[in-house]
């Protein structure tokens, strides 16, 4: 198994996540795209950890933390979306333009 094959998978997922973040209108789906990006990052980390045969397994442990934090972030994100929905009655980001200058 080459190193690069895993990394390319990670890169592809990351790019797709980026595409999703920019393209999607629904706030929840934007969050989902962010999740995709984070998953791609995890793949990268674990791959390098295994490739480098790190004694401390810092890659894997770091990816564990990322998972935990991603979960927390999604929780908060959903809560915020719910708040906005209560306020604006919509989850469509096109209509959430209160910050428009």
């Amino acid at each position: 198994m080459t190193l690069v094959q895993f990394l390319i998978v990670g890169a592809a997922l990351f790019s797709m996540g980026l595409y999703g973040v920019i393209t999607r209108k629904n706030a929840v789906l934007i969050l989902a795209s962010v999740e995709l990006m984070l998953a791609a990052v995890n793949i990268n980390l674990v791959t390098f950890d295994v490739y480098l045969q790190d004694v401390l397994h810092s890659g894997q442990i770091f990816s564990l933390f990322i998972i935990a934090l991603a979960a927390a972030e999604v929780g908060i994100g959903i809560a915020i979306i719910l708040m906005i929905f209560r306020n604006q009655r919509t989850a469509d980001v096109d209509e959430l333009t209160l910050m428009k200058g």
Partner: protein
Amino acid sequence: MTVTVSDFFRESANWAFLVIAIPTLYAGWRTVSSNNIVRAVLYLVVALGGSAALFFMLGAEFVGWTVVLVYIGAVIILFLIGIMITRAPLGQEADLSHDRNVKAPAALLSTVMFGVITWGLLDAFSNEAIAPFEPTSTNELSLLIFDRFVIPFEVVSFVLLAALIGGIALARKDEEVAS
């Protein structure tokens, strides 16, 4: 140790890799392009599952199971709850993405990003092989977490606590202003 393309296909692990990777990629793509919101989230499930499988391939069992439990088990649930409560448009014809004007540049951007990263990777690591390895033992990982990485562990615990409290605070109904 470098590997050539023919070597790639000779190794059985790589075949397994391809079997896992291609659906993962497809699922990832469908997540960001599907018009059906529920399907999009479920494609995310597949993508995440695929990444967990990749972890298993790499011997990172604990991480893989954590992904399954946390991501697929909990995060997806949150997404589905979010979809339900925000009365997102369910059904096939939902207009979930921006129009062509946004999609084209975004596609360009993503492609460029992918290209740049891949170019960088190939430039640096072309055909480097992963040496044979033992699967990472959970015992070993847990010892490391509570030994070397105990402080980040505690910090993350606090973050989770904060997220918990924040979530509750956010999701409460506004109280009536006392008159």
